[in-house]
C-alpha cells in the first residue's frame, strides 16, 4: 500500500510501506532492499519533517547525521493497538522510578514509567551522586536526597548497560 495513506492504516510486520528514497525510517519500521517495511503491528503514521517525537512513540533510534530534513518520517505506532507498549528507556526520556536501594555512591532505582508509557518489565537504573543536581555536586549526600521507596522523576542521560556493574561497561562499549 502507499505509505501516504491515512494514518488509520493498520500495518503488520513485513508490510511494505514505501521506498527508502522517499521516507525516513521511523520507529517500528525497518529497511530491506532499499524499501521501508513495517516491523510492528500497529497504525501507520507519516510525520512531516517537523517531527516532535514524544516518548510515546518508541524512539529507539537516532537518525544519523543531520537527515535530509524534507523527507517525511514514516513510523508504525502501537499506541492505538494495545495499551501494553513496552519501550526501552531512551537517552533523553523523562522517567518515573522508585528508589530500590541506596549506596553512598548512587541510588539504584526501578524505572516504572517511561514518558507516558507504563512499563511491564522493571528496568533498573542508577542515579549517581554527581547527577542528583547540577551544582555543588560534591556536597550531595545520596541518603539525604533519596530514601528507598521514593518516587523520583528523572531524565535518562545514558542508556548503555545501566543494569551492569560499572566495570562491565568497558566490555559493553568494546562490543561496538
Amino acid at each position: 500500500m502507499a505509505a501516504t495513506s491515512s494514518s488509520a492504516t493498520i500495518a503488520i510486520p513485513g508490510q511494505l510501506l514505501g521506498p527508502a528514497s522517499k521516507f525516513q525510517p521511523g520507529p517500528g519500521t525497518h529497511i530491506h532492499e532499499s524499501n521501508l517495511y513495517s516491523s510492528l503491528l500497529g497504525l501507520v503514521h507519516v510525520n512531516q519533517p517537523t517531527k516532535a517525537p514524544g516518548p510515546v512513540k518508541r524512539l529507539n533510534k537516532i537518525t544519523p547525521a543531520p537527515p535530509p530534513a524534507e523527507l517525511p518520517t514514516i513510523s508504525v505506532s502501537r499506541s492505538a493497538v494495545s495499551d501494553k507498549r513496552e519501550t526501552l528507556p531512551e537517552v533523553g526520556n523523562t522517567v518515573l522510578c522508585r528508589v530500590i536501594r541506596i549506596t553512598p555512591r548512587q541510588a539504584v532505582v526501578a524505572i516504572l514509567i517511561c514518558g507516558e508509557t507504563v512499563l511491564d518489565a522493571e528496568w533498573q537504573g542508577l542515579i549517581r551522586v554527581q547527577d542528583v543536581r547540577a551544582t555543588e555536586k560534591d556536597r550531595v549526600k545520596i541518603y539525604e536526597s533519596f530514601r528507598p521507596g521514593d518516587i523520583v522523576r528523572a531524565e535518562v542521560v545514558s542508556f548503555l548497560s545501566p543494569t551492569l556493574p560499572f566495570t562491565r561497561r568497558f566490555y559493553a562499549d568494546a562490543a561496538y
Partner: protein
Amino acid sequence: MKFPLGSSSLNWMYGRGRQSAAIRNLETHNPTSTSHPESDSDLLHTADSYSSIMAIPSLSFSRPTFAKLSPHPYLLTNLSPQSPSTKPSRTNGRAPHEARPVQIHTSSLSHAHGSALVRSGNTTVVCGVRAEILPVTNIPQYRPRSSLQPSTTASDEAADRAELKAYDLLVPNIELATGCAPQFLPGVPPSTLAQTLSTRVYSLLHSCGVVDPKSLRIWHDPSAEAKKTTGEGDASMQDDNDDDESEAEPPQLMAYWVLYIDLLFVSFDGNPFDAAWTAVMAALRDTKLPEARWDPDREMAICSRTRKNPLDVSRGGLPVACTAAVFQEKEYAEAGGLAGENRHWVLLDPDRLEESLCRETVTMVVDCGGVGGETRIRSIEKQGGTVIGRELMRGFAGVAEKRWREVRDAMQ
C-alpha cells in the same frame, strides 16, 4: 483519560512518612539546573521537573500511571470516591461483592477421559482427567476388602474414603509455570503457590468425598466370565452382584482406576483456587471411564472401546469454592491496630492487583445442593488478618451461596 489527584491524597507519592524525604530532596535541588548530557556515563539525572511536581497544584496522572506508581491508594480512591453520589467500585469496575462471570466448556480434550476449560474473567484454567489402571498387585500395602456388597452405611462410606486416600487414587496437580502471568515462568520447580493449590485441591477432594470409589474398582467375576457378556464392567458387575447373591465364587477386586487430574493455567488474573476447583469439579463430572473387565489369563484389565460409564460424583454433591480478599484503608496496618479504625472492604473474587494489595483472604466452600437446598459448608480457610470475624463470616456465607448458584448455572 486523566485521573485527578486531589490534595487530600497527595501523600500517595511518598507513602508512609516519605514527605520529609521529598521535601529535603527538593531543598537540595536547584530548580534552575538543567540536565548535563555530557556526563554520559550515568543513567539518570533527577531533572528539575521534580520540583515542578510540587509546584503544579493540580498534578494529574493517567490512570495506568497512577496505578503503577502507587497501587494501594489507587484502589483506595476507587473504593472511596470523593463524591457520595458515585458508588464505590473496584479498579476492575466491579462492585466489592461482585464476582467475575464463570464460563465452563467441558470435554474439549480428546486424550483425556474428562476435561474442562474454566474461564472467570481473565483467569483461564484447563483441567484434564486421565484414568490409568492400577492392579492391586502393584499396591504394596493392599488389604482386600472384607465386604463386597455395595457400601451403604456411614462406616462403609468412611472406609471408602480411607480406601481412596490409602491407595492414592486421586492425583491432582496444578501447573502454574506456563507463563500464564509474568511471575510464572517455566523451567522452575513448582512454586509455593502451585504446591499449596495442589494440596488444597487434594485435601478438598478427599474431605468432600467427591469421587465414589465404587466407580473406580475393577472386578473379576469368574461366574460372569462363564456367562460371557463381553466386556464385563464394574457397574454392571455391581448389578448382577446384587440380584443374585447366590454366586458360586464371589467376584474379587483386581484393579483400581487412578485419576490423574492435571490443571494447566492458560491465563492467570487472581483467585486461582476458585477457578481450579471449579475446573476439577467440571472435569470430574465430565469424566467417563471405559468399561473394564479383568482378563485372568493375560492378567490385565481390558477396556471396551465403545462402552463408557460416567464417573459417579453424585455423592459429593457440588461443592463450590468462593474466595474473597480483605482490603484495608491503611496500607501498613500498625501491629496493634483494631479493624475499626481502619476502614476495610471485602472484595469478592479478587484479581491480580487486588491480591497483591490484600493480606487477608478467606475461602469458603459451600454446597447448597443438599436435600431441601440447605447450605452445607464443606470447608473454610482464612489467613492473614483479623478483620473477618463471626458476623462478617455469616454474611459471607450468603455471598457464597449466591456464588454457588452462579457456578451451578454455569455447570449446567
